[in-house]
């Protein structure tokens, strides 16, 4: 099965990147620090995707984002040549933009770029290559027959609060993002994913939880997790330290190791 990974992100910008971490919304960071924190986590997320080697990596950015800034930002990414393409969404809501990202890969089934798409958000510095490899394995377990025929399958990773930051599915899965992130019933993202899978009888799997960082309490919980990843990466090849996020949190004085790593 050929997989494609799409990292879903706004172009980083002061005041719009992780704004809820900023003092303007009761957080502890300035808007510039919030943006810089997001940039570090986005680069770490992209690096985990590339190093997973499970498929080509694309970006899907917001239509109104500053394209020149994004180009400069990507120059800071050592694997820039491994980014297979950048899609610019149509400026619709989150659900529609996610659908658009998948359409860019599947192209309505004709000349598709891959058999499955794995969409990840850019604010998950805890993402490690293993998460993507596990997603690929689960998609192949559920969505590929022994003769190679691709069948419907849906795989997700939950976040810490009933959302999801990673979702993979095969091209012929009867699934779209309608209502997943925005719905009038206030249904959680995870409940909506499970309900859609149940309604369409889609084989479904969940991998390890990958927390995101949206709110000040998430940032607080980031500290021990970053410490754990930073230290555990010394002993286990499957663990990858999000080095940029760790370095930025150290720079802010929010993260201190008791001895050098």
């Amino acid at each position, binding site marked *: 099965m050929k997989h494609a990974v799409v990292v879903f992100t706004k172009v980083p910008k002061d005041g719009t990147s992780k704004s*809820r971490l900023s003092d303007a*919304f009761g957080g502890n960071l300035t808007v510039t620090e919030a943006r810089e924190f997001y940039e570090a986590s986005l680069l770490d997320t992209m690096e985990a995707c590339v190093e997973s080697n499970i498929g080509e990596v694309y970006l899907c950015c917001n239509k109104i984002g500053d394209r020149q800034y994004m180009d400069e930002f990507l120059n800071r990414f050592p694997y820039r040549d491994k980014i297979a393409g950048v899609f610019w969404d149509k400026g619709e809501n989150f659900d529609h933009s996610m659908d658009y990202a998948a359409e860019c890969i599947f192209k309505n089934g004709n000349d598709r770029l891959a058999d499955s798409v794995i969409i990840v958000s850019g604010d998950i510095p805890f993402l490690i290559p293993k998460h993507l490899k596990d997603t690929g394995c689960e998609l192949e377990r*559920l969505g590929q027959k022994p003769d190679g025929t691709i069948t419907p399958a849906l795989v*997700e990773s*939950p976040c*810490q*609060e*009933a*959302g999801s930051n990673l979702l993979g599915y095969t091209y012929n899965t009867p699934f779209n993002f309608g209502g997943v992130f*925005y719905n009038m019933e*206030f*249904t*959680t*993202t*995870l*409940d909506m*994913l*499970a*309900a859609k*899978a*149940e309604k369409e009888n889609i*084989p*479904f*799997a*969940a991998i*390890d*939880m990958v*927390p*995101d960082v*949206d*709110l000040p*309490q998430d940032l*607080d*919980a*980031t*500290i*021990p*997790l970053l*410490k*754990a*990843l930073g*230290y*555990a990466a*010394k*002993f*286990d090849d499957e*663990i990858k330290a999000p080095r940029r996020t760790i370095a930025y949190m150290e720079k802010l004085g929010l993260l201190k*190791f*008791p*001895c050098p790593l």
Partner: protein
Amino acid sequence: MESVILLFSEVPEPGRTRSALTYAQGGILSDKQAANFYRRSLIDTLNACSKMTPTKIYICCNGDGDLEKMQKIIDATVCPDKIEIYGDHGGKFGECVDECVKAIKDKEEGKLLVLLSGDLPLIQPHIVDNILAKTSLARFPALGVCPSQSGATSVIVMSPDAELSYSDMFDKPNHNRSLEEFIDSAMVKGYPIYLGETVPDVDNVVDMASMISLINALKMAAKSDNSLVLPIKVIEYLNKLGLTATAPSSKTDDEVCADCSY
């Protein structure tokens, strides 16, 4: 290498157990419901433990609690013969952990210890077995840990020769989150640490709401994977209470909350 589980739990008592879920603390359950929820969560956690590699489970609980009640909980599991109660002598949380670890180490010499709590209804046997396997292959002394969703520790694995002071970690004033204290202690001692998957716990209403959605996803996943263990007792109770999770659409739309509709 052989291993045993130490499950830390108070004997469930209304008013003392899962109080952050209760009306008195702005939660959504009565005292009795919160204790009932925890009791069921404990049974589900023990049932999941019964499918893990360790052959013996010690429930480390407050020795002055109602141990007959705890035995009834054990009898309601699928594995009462594998479970033994160790009643501690009281004190601060870290002191109790230190006491239990020392006592079980002496009794089960040379075995790996798996420390966890009773509020992990979503725990899966393969998660603990994986971290146990990694730790057992390490250069000793070595440690393993599965974080909770909020930067705490849900599962700890200790090699037989690992020496940690949980009272130093958890009982000092203004201590950091338990995972941070744990990592710091390991780093200072130079012990290698192996990091496992996240195992969510249920301390407050947001955790509970998240758990409800995670259970719904787990139920779907279990249709295609018969190795997954569903928290049957908790699911029964949620159904009885009629609890569902909601995601309010507001500036805090990344937070979920539980909605009572009974």
